[in-house]
C-alpha cells in the first residue's frame, strides 16, 4: 500500500492504494468515477482512455501509484459548469455514439487528437482512433464529430 496524491477533474485526491492497483480500477472502484469503462483485458479497446497531465492514456495500462502527483481528467471532468465540451456536443449533434460504452474513451482520445493536431484530415482522424474500438457506429459519425469539434475548439 502507498499513499498517492492526484488532482482528478480539478480536485485534489489523497488515497491509500495497493501497489498493483490499475488507474482504471482506482477511478472506477475507489472514486466511483464509472464513466471510465473497461472493455478488454489486453489494452486494445480504448474504452478506458483518460488524460494524464494533458495526454490521453489507456488507464488500464497505468498503475495509480505510478502517476502520483499527476493531473487526471476523466470523462466526468470534461464538461465545464454543466456545459458539455465541444467534442461532447459534436458527438451528440452527429450521432457519434450508440450504446455509449466506448464513448468516454473515444471522446477523451479525440480531444487529445485536436490538442495535437488542430485540423486533422479524415485519414489522420481514422489513424489516431485506431486504438479505440467501437462496435456500434462503423466510426463514420465519430470521424464527422471530430471534424465538427475541430471547427469549434
Amino acid at each position, binding site marked *: 500500500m502507498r499513499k498517492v496524491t492526484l488532482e482528478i477533474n480539478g480536485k485534489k485526491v489523497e488515497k491509500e492504494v495497493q501497489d498493483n492497483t490499475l488507474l482504471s480500477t482506482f477511478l472506477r472502484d475507489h472514486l466511483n468515477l464509472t464513466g471510465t469503462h473497461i472493455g478488454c483485458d489486453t489494452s486494445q479497446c480504448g474504452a478506458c482512455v483518460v488524460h494524464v497531465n494533458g495526454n490521453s492514456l489507456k488507464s488500464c495500462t497505468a498503475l495509480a501509484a505510478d502517476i502520483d502527483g499527476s493531473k487526471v481528467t476523466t470523462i466526468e471532468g470534461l464538461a465545464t459548469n454543466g456545459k458539455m465540451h465541444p467534442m461532447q456536443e459534436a458527438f451528440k449533434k452527429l450521432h457519434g455514439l450508440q450504446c455509449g460504452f466506448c464513448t468516454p474513451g473515444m471522446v477523451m482520445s479525440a480531444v487529445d487528437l485536436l490538442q495535437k493536431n488542430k485540423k486533422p484530415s479524415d485519414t489522420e482522424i*481514422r489513424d489516431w482512433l485506431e486504438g479505440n474500438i467501437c462496435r*456500434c457506429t462503423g466510426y463514420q459519425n465519430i470521424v464527422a464529430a471530430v471534424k465538427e469539434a475541430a471547427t469549434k475548439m
Partner: protein
Amino acid sequence: MASLVGSRVERKEDKRFLTGKGRYTSDINLANQTYAIFVRSPHARAKIKKLDISKAQKSSGVVSILTGSEIAEDKIGGLIAGWAIRSEDGTEMKCPANPPLAKDIVNFVGDPVAVVIAESLEEAKVAAEKVSVDYKVLKAVTSTADAMDGDTIHEGIDKNLCFDWLLGDRQKVKEAFEKADKVISIDIINNRLIPNAMEPRACLADYNSASEEITLYTTSQNPHLSRLIMSAFGNVSPEHKLRVVAPDVGGGFGSKINVYNEDIVCSWAAKKINRAIKWVAERSESFLTDIHGRDHVTHAELAVTNDGKFLGFKNETIANLGAYARVFGTVTPTYLFGPCATGVYEIPAAYSNVKAVFTNTAPVDAYRGAGRPEATYTIERLVEKASMELGIDKTELRMKNFPTAFPFKQTLVHTVDSGDYVAGMEKAKQMADYNGYEARRKDSESRGKLRGIGVSSYFEACGIAPSAAVMSLGCGVGLWESAEVRFNPTGQVTVYTGSHSHGQSHQTTFAQIAADELGVPIENIDIVHGDTDKGTFGMGTYGSRSLTVGGIAIVNACKKIVEKGKRVTAKMLEASPEDVEFKDGEFIVAKSNKKKTIGEIAFACYLPGVRDEMKSPLPEGEEPGLKETAFFDPSNFSFPAGTHIAEVEIDPETGEVKLEKYTACDDFGRIINPMIVEGQVHGGLAQGIGQALYENAEYDETGQLMTGSYMDYTMPRADNFPEFNIGYTCTHATTNPLGVKGCGEAGAIAAPPTVMNAVIDALGGQEITMPATAEKVWKACKNLKKSNSKAA
C-alpha cells in the same frame, strides 16, 4: 404542430453517455456485495473425475464455493433452446441438458464447473486458482464439416446431429434442375464470428430474505424474457419474486439475448448465501463463453436457363450449434435462414436442407442478422457466379429475376407485402456510378492494382414476429410486444416499452412517435424500459423488432389514450364523443370553438370527484386516471430490402484489400429518424465488412479458441473503412400503421456478399473464403498471375 416522425432529432440518451453518467451493470455496486469468479473448463471435452474445493475453501475471504452438484441437488434447471425444430423425417430435434454448472462432463473450453464467491475480487481470483479439477480429457469434435463423423459428444445424440431439417420440395427441385440449361454450384463457408459487444457481460444478483425477492441486474437485451426463462426453466425463483433489471447495456448484437450460466448461478447463489454477488466478465471470458455467430458450411446450386432465368435452387448446409442449443440457436440456421436463401428472386422451385450439429465449441446463436446474412451470402455469391458463367451483367441478371409485383410470394415461406427491388437497384447503380466502373478499373490497372466490383441484393424477414406463425414453427413463446402509456396528472408522459435499447435509441425514436400521436412536446415524454418491475411483460429487442413490433404497440396504446380523451372531452364539453376530433394535442368539438388540450384532459382524468358546482369530468362507468396498455402482435414479418455495391482495390504484391467504395441503397419503409437509421446502417456495414475482410473465430483441433483476445481476433478499426455512401428508396410496409420495416440488421446482412463478390471479381472469379485476409488474397493473386501467363 410539425411532425417529429421523419425528423433528425438529437438523442435524449446522449448526454448521460457523453458525460460519464451512463449506468451499466458493472457500474452498480451494492452494500456488502461479494464477488464471483467462475472456474471454467480448460478442455473442450472432458469428464470431471474429481472436483476438490477443500484448499480453495480455506483461501482468504472465501464466502462460498458452489459446484454442479449443488445446482443439481437444488434442482436448478439448465439453459434451453427456445425453438423446437423437427427433422425432415418428422422426429423432434435432440438437445442435451445444459446445466448452469457442469457436474459430470464439460463440452467446451469455458464451460463453468464451479463458482467461487469471496469478499473481494482479488480473493475470489486467488481462491479460484486453488479449485482442483481432475479431468479425463476426451477427443474433441470441433470441425463443422466433419462433426457428424466425430465421436458422439452427447449421449443419445447420434452423429452429433440435433436435427436434419428440410424446407421446400425436393421433387419439384429435381424436375426444375432437369429442365436447366446450366447448373451453377458453389461451396461456401460462412465463417464463425464473435459478437464482441464492447461492454462485457456482467450481472449483480441481490437477495432480500424478508421479501424473498431476488433482484438481478444483468446485461440483457430482454429482461422479461430472461426472468421468464430463469423462473419457468431455471427454477431459480417464482416469477413474482424475481426482478430483472437490464440498465444501460453496452451493445448486444444478439449476444445478450440468452440467459447465461452466470445469471442463473449468481441469482441462485445470492439466495443461498443471503448476500449480493457481482460478476463481471473479463474480455477473455466473453470470447470463450458469449454465444458465437454464423459457422455454416454450405453447398448450393442454382438451375438457370442460358438467357438467365432462375429455375431452381438447392441449399445443403451444415450448421454448427456449438456445444449446446441455446435460445435462438436452433431457429437461426432454420427458419431465419432457409426461407431467405432464395433471396429477392422468383425461383419456381427451391429447398433448404440444414443439418445442425453439436461440436465442442461455444454455443452458436443469433448474431446481428441471424440466419439472414448466411442466406444472403449463399444466394448472392451464387448469383454473382452465375453472372460470370453466363456472361450476363450482374445487375441485369438480378433484375431479370426480381419479382414484378407485390405482394411477392417468395418460394419457401414468406409473402413480402411491399417493395420495389428494381428501383433500389437502379438507385444503387446511380449512387455507385456503376457505369463508370470500367474507367476506375483501368486506372487501378495502370497502377499495377487489381480492382473488383461486387453487387448484392437482399431482402430479410425481420420485425419478429407474428406469434401464430412463429409458434407453429416451434417457437416457445409468442413474439408480440407491449407498451404502457402513462400520463401524469400534470401532463407529462411516461412510456414503458417491453423492448430494450442497447444502442438503438429508443428513448428518442419512441418519444418522437409518442409525441406525434399525443401532441405532447418530446421533452415531456420519457421512454422507460429494461426493468421487469416498471412495466408490462415484454419480449425484448432482436430481429429488428423494436420499432416494427414495439413501436406499433406504443402507437396503439396512444390511440387508446386518445379514444378515452375523446370520451372525457365529450362529457366535459357536453358533446357526443363521435363529434370530438383530436389533432396536435387538442380535443376539438366539431363545428364549434370548444376544445380541451390533452394536458387538461389528463388532469381531469385524475380528478373524478363532484363538489358544489364542479361535476365529474368522467362519463358514467369510466375509470379515473389516464394510462393505457397495448399488446401488438404483427400479422406478418417485415421485409426490408436493398442493393449494395462495393469496389475493392487489391495490391497483388501484398494481397492487401482496400475497400475503396461502399454504396448501400436500402428500403426500410418509413424512417422515423434519419440520423439514427444512418447510424444503424453504418454499424451493420462495419460488422458485415468485418466478417468479409477481418473477423474470424478459429478453434484448433483440440477445441482451444485460437482467437480469444483482441490481439488475435481482428476487430474492425476506424482506419479499415471508407466513408460509406448510403441512400434509400421507400415503400411503406402495409402490415403496420407506421409503414416501418426495421433497419438494424441490413448492413450486416448485405455487406459480406457485396464485399466478397468484389474481391472475387478482382481475383478473376477465384473462390476464397471469408475473411479475405492479405495472405489468402496474395496466394490467389499468385494463381492469377500463373493462369494469366499460361493464357498468354
